[in-house]
C-alpha cells in the first residue's frame, strides 16, 4: 500500500498536469514491480517461511520512505500531502464524491479480479495452491503463476493504498502504513475467507465497520444500563471485542465469512424444510 501511495504521490507532485486516475494507476504499477521483487522468494519457499520473507517488504518500505527524502519530495517533515483532487473537472471533496470515486475503482477492479479468477490464469493459481508439484507435472509453469499472483495482488493493493492515502488521509507519513495496517489487510483476507472474492468484501467490511459500530453502540448500551463509557474505555473495548471476534471466527469457521455466507444461502434455499 505504501509503495502505491508514495509512487502515486511522486507522479502527482512531480509531473505537472497528470490526471489523478493515471497517477493512481502508476502507483499501482510501481507497487507491482516491488511486489514481484519481494515475491521472488516464493519460487523457493512456501507457507510460513514465505510469509516471513514477504514481511521483510514491510520493514524495508518503512525504512525507505522514512530515510530516502526523494520519495517525499524533499519535505523537511517527511510527510506527503495532496489536495485539490479532481477528475474531469469534478472535484472530490464531499464524502459522497469520494465514495463514488472509490466505488468506480472498486467496480472495475472487482470485475477484473472475478474474470481473472475464472480464466486460465485463475485456474493455474488454484492448481498451484492445491498441489504445486502436480501442477508443475501437468505443465503449469510455477514461476509464471506465482509471480503473476504477486503482480496482480500488488497492483490491486497499490492502487488501494494510493486511493486510501489520496482520498481518505490527504496527508500521511510512513507511520500510516505501519505493521498494524499490514496485519489489518491480512485479517481482512483471513476472516473473509482465503481464495474467495466475496470473502474479501466481507472481511474488509467486518474489519472497517466493526470498530465504528462498537464506537457508536457501546455508549448507547452504556446509557441504557446507566454506565458512562469513557473514550479510553471505548478504544480498549474496540480492540478487545475485535480480537475476541477474530479468534472466535477462526475457531467456528476457519474458511471465513464467505463460507458462512454460502452455507447460509444453501440453508435458506431449503428452509423451512431441512433434510
Amino acid at each position, binding site marked *: 500500500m505504501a509503495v502505491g501511495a508514495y509512487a502515486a504521490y511522486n507522479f502527482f*507532485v512531480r509531473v505537472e498536469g497528470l490526471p489523478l486516475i493515471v497517477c493512481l494507476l502508476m502507483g499501482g504499477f510501481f507497487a507491482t514491480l516491488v511486489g514481484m521483487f519481494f515475491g521472488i522468494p516464493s519460487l523457493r519457499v512456501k507457507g510460513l517461511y514465505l510469509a516471513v520473507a514477504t514481511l521483510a517488504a514491510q520493514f524495508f518500505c518503512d525504512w525507505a520512505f522514512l530515510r530516502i527524502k526523494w520519495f517525499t519530495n524533499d519535505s523537511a517533515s517527511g510527510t506527503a500531502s495532496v489536495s485539490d483532487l479532481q477528475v474531469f473537472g469534478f472535484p472530490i471533496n464531499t464524502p459522497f464524491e469520494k465514495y463514488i470515486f472509490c466505488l468506480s475503482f472498486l467496480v472495475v477492479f472487482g470485475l477484473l479480479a472475478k474474470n481473472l479468477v475464472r480464466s486460465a490464469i485463475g485456474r493455474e493459481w488454484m492448481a498451484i495452491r492445491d498441489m504445486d508439484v502436480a501442477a508443475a507435472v501437468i505443465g503449469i509453469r510455477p514461476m509464471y503463476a506465482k509471480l503473476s499472483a504477486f503482480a496482480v495482488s500488488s497492483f490491486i493493493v497499490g492502487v488501494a493504498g494510493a486511493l486510501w492515502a489520496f482520498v481518505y488521509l*490527504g496527508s500521511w507519513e510512513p507511520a*500510516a502504513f505501519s505493521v498494524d495496517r499490514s496485519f489489518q489487510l491480512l485479517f481482512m483476507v483471513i476472516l473473509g475467507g482465503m481464495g474467495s472474492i466475496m470473502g474479501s468484501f466481507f472481511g474488509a467490511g467486518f474489519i472497517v465497520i466493526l470498530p465504528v459500530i462498537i464506537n457508536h453502540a457501546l455508549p448507547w448500551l452504556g446509557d441504557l444500563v446507566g454506565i458512562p463509557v469513557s*473514550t479510553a474505555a471505548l478504544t480498549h473495548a474496540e480492540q478487545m471485542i475485535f480480537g475476541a471476534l477474530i479468534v472466535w471466527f477462526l475457531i467456528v469457521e476457519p474458511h471465513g465469512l464467505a463460507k458462512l455466507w454460502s452455507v447460509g444461502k444453501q440453508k435458506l434455499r431449503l428452509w423451512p424444510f431441512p433434510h
Partner: protein
Amino acid sequence: MKIRSLMMAVAVAATGLTSALVTTSAQAQAKEQFFPVLPYRTGAYAPNGVPWGNAYVDYLKLINARDGGINGVKITYEECDTAYATDRGVECYERLKGKSQGGVFQPLSTGITFALTEKAPTDKNPLITGGYGRSESSDGQVFKWNFPLQGTYWSGADIIMQIITKKEGGNIKGKKIALVYHDSPFGKEPIPLLQERAKIQGFDLQLLPVTAPGVEQKATWLQVRQARPDYVLLWGWGVMNSAALKEAVATGYPREKMYGVWWSAAEPDVKDVGEAAKGYNGLVATGEGGKVVADIKSVVHGKKQGTGPIEEVGTTLYNRGMVSAALAVEGVRRAQERYGKGKVMTGEQIRWGLENLALDQKALDKLGLGTVMKPISTSCLDHEGSRSARLHTWDGKKWVYSSDWIEADDSIIKPLVKQFADKYAAEKKLTRRTPADCQS
C-alpha cells in the same frame, strides 16, 4: 389483515412523529457552542495525552460552571480518541465536524495536524496547534486556518539555542550539538531551524533519529557516547522521553547537558527515572497555575465534576491543556465581540476571533490566567501571537523554574517561515492573502 395494516400505519406515524420531535429539540439546543475535543487516551503516547485532555475538558466545564458559558452561551463538547494515529484523527475530525456550524480543532499531534491542514480550509474549521504543528503555519497569509499559538517548534529550538549560547558565554562555534528526535513529522520539525543556526553560529549539528514509538534507543545512545556531543536536545514524546533519560543514565551522559522541548519535559517523562534524571532541563511554555488552577480545583473538582485525578491539576501538561482550551474559548469570545455577543459562532467567525486575539496582562489577570500564560496578540501575518518560554529543571522530585521568560529570536525565524510558507503556497498553488482579505 386490516388490523395489521392499521398497526403498521400507527408504527410509521409514531416513528415519523418522534423523528420530528427529535429534530425540533435539536434546534432548540442550537444556542450552545460546540467544542470538539481530540485527545488520545490510548496508545503509546497516552500517559502524556491524558493530562492534556483532562485539562481541556476541565477548563470547558469551568467556563460553564463559573461563568455560565461564554457571554451566556453554554459550551458543549464531545471527545473522540485519536490514539495519536493519523487515520483515527482524520476519522474523529470527519465525525465531529458536522456536529455544529463549526468548531476549533486541536489535535495535539503534528502528524494529524498535517492531515487536517488540508481539510480544515474546505470545511472552514480553524485549527489551533499551540506549541506543535507546522512551524511555518505562523504565517497567517498562507495558512489562513492554522494557529500555532504561543510557540512553534522553531521558536522552541531557537530559545534552547539561545540558552545554550548564553551558557557558553555567547560563542558556540565548534561545539557539538546532537538532536535526538522522534522519527516523525513532530521530531523533524526543528531541523531546518537548527541547520540555519548551525550555519550562522558555526556549531556541529548531529541528527539522531529514534524510530517511533521510541522504546528502543540503545543504538542511538551508543552513538551519543561515541560522539560525545557538548549538548543533547531531546525531541521526544510519550514513552520515548523516559526511555531516552534511562539510556542517558545507562551510558553516563550528564543530564545537565540535556535540554528537552516543552513536550519532552513534563512529569510523566521523569517520574519513572526519578532521582537519576536530576539536572535534566526542559522548556516550559506555561507559568504557575495561579487563580485558574485554584478555580478548577474548587469549582470543578470540588463538585466531583473533574475529569481525572485532582493530583494532576497544576502539572505541566495539565497547564498546557488548560491554556489550549483557554485560547479556544478566548477566540470564541473575541469573535462574539464582532459578530454578536451571546450568539453561537461559526467556524469562520471563530477564525476571525483567533486572528484578532489581544490578551494583555490585565485581560489575562481578569480571566485568572495571569500567571500561567504570557500576553498574546495575533494578527493576519502572525498566527503565533507570542513566542516565549522558560526553562525548568528536574530536581529529582519536581520541576523547578530555572530561568526567566525568553523570547525567540524573530530575525532568524521570520525569513525561514516566509521561505517555507512560500514553498507550501507554491506547491498547493495558493496565493498569499491580500491586505483587504486580512481586514475582513
